[in-house]
């Protein structure tokens, strides 16, 4: 129904002292579940607020469904937003909280009743209609906030870390429910989170942000497999990627302590970081590149163990179902195809060309 497009958005705070958004250019396709992911303070919430119209960009244009929205008020943009702290009206009952948007848009009362009833049934809060927000649990408040957004049937949903105030167990079930719920809607969803697992699990489209800039956007799996920036490689992925410094000389990467040497198609480059994901390293000598090291830490994760191995001056973490003895020499291997190379100065990916 609605495509969201941002063109050359810039936004600064405190008279230019803090740059919140820089050179934001992105087109979020119609009807996708798009997640804006980044560490705290990266500008992701500001980006959402710019789309909502709660924040005016210093320059640049906001388009929703092809229509320029810069001067359109938030209530006219056909959006709905769920705030991190839910922002329910404390002095209004659950019913009034959900119905108020419709009331202000002058819907007839019987229609409001009907719509509120429908939405509250979907979310399972139909028995709480007379309660006040303070009488609700965190999960129920969150559902009420969602209901308030859903009932307006907007073309774009904006969700600002809606799960971050829930405890771990409720969050897990709510995440699944949310994904199911939004699958059935035709609306475009912009979902802000700092939790990369949440982002990977929920979204069709991922936007990774850092320091006010979009580092990479696209399908989550592609971003995981093919990060274009050191930051993206470090941020995306269930376990923190191993980064080794070194340089590329004569089509070989050699780590700074000389322990690792990998062939590559890049001719030469000084100051290189090599990234290899823990899930791509294996025990034994199964892959092309193998290393010798000493186990110094084992972190059990249930089905797998996260094993830290010292290889000369570097520490590598990898994932294995086996639990080797501590302080014993082991051999590891990985495929050079799984290694990424980044410029250590600007963090950009070095390609084989």
């Amino acid at each position, binding site marked *: 129904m609605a495509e969201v497009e941002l063109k050359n958005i810039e936004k600064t705070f405190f008279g230019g002292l803090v740059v919140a958004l820089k050179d934001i250019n992105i087109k979020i396709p119609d009807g996708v579940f798009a997640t804006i992911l980044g560490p705290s303070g990266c500008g992701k919430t500001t980006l959402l607020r710019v789309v909502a119209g709660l924040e005016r960009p210093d320059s640049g244009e906001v388009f929703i469904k092809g229509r320029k929205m810069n001067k359109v008020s938030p*209530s006219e943009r056909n959006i*709905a937003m769920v705030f991190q702290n839910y*922002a329910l*009206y404390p002095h209004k009952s659950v019913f009034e909280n959900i119905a*108020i948007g419709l009331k202000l*848009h002058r819907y007839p009362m019987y229609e409001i009743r009907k719509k509120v009833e429908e939405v509250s049934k979907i979310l399972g809060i139909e028995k709480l209609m007379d309660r006040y927000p303070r009488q609700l649990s965190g999960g129920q408040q969150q559902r009420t906030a969602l209901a308030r957004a859903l009932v307006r049937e907007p073309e774009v949903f904006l969700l600002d870390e809606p799960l971050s105030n829930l405890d771990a167990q409720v969050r897990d079930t709510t995440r699944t429910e949310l994904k199911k719920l939004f699958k059935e809607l035709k609306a475009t969803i912009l979902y802000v989170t700092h939790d990369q697992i949440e982002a990977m699990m929920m979204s069709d489209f991922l936007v990774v942000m850092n320091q006010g800039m979009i580092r990479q956007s696209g399908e989550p799996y592609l971003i995981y497999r093919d990060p274009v920036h050191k930051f993206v490689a470090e941020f995306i992925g269930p376990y923190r990627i191993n980064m080794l410094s070194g340089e590329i000389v004569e089509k070989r990467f050699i780590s700074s302590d000389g322990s690792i040497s990998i062939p590559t198609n890049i001719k030469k480059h000084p100051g290189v970081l090599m990234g290899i994901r823990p899930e791509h390293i294996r025990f034994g000598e199964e892959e092309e590149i193998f290393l010798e090291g000493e186990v110094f830490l084992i972190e059990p994760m249930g089905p797998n163990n996260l094993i830290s191995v010292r290889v000369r001056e570097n520490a590598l973490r990898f994932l294995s179902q086996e639990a080797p003895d501590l302080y014993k020499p082991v051999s590891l291997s990985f495929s050079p195809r799984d290694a990424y190379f980044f410029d250590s100065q600007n963090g950009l990916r070095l390609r084989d060309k």
Partner: protein
Amino acid sequence: MKRILLYVLFILIFLYCLFPFGWTLITALKPTDEVFNLPVTYLPEEVSFENLNNVFYKRPFYRYIVNSLIVAGGATLLTLWIASMVAFRLRALDYQKAMRVQKWTLIGTIIPPTLLVIPFFIIMKKLSLTDNYLGLILSYTALNLPFAMWMLHAAFRQLPRELDEAALIDGFSPMGILYKIIMPLSKPSLSVTAALVFIFCWNEFILALTLMPSETKYTVPVGIAMLSGTSVYEIPWGEINAAVALTTLPIILILAAFQRWIIEGLTQGAIKG
């Protein structure tokens, strides 16, 4: 034992505080001769409504009360209305900027009201607002605005900004946000402010005396001060006390009515932490 001592102490303090009002009430209920009796009789030997009757029927005292209610009520409403709008706007600014404005308003409270009597009189004279309720209402509003702005600004700032934004997306107008969201949620602070402003206006003497020269426009404090006997040498203590007792009553009623919210408002900061 310690508890009992504590309660005894509380009761003593309570009686000590209550004594002036009690004395006023007792004197008001004494017949005129007994007021001047020596030795003093603490409890009236016979209860008489003579003084109350005199205040109400021989003098236009109900008129003074109505005047006071109009002026104090009007000034309180106007003050709260203007202060709410200012505080709402200040809340939208970042804290540093808002405080820069607020510091200037604070200067308004440093100037003693007595100093402003003559300027106010000159202004109201020029506007032909002397002997007019509006003149006094405007003066009281001017005097109370800084205080009310500080109170309400602090109160509004405690509400999360997301409430406004949610309301904006829901389709409220800015004034709608103030009236339907911010003000209902600030009832405790609004009540405290209203009560304090009202009491100030109810008790104010010198401006009322200056700006309202004709007898039909006297407010209660002026009316009480103007009570006099048949000769210069007679001071009608009985009637004065009756008048004072009567005029303290509305204040007590207001405080009682808003008690819950006033306590909530005064302790708000402490509980929220």
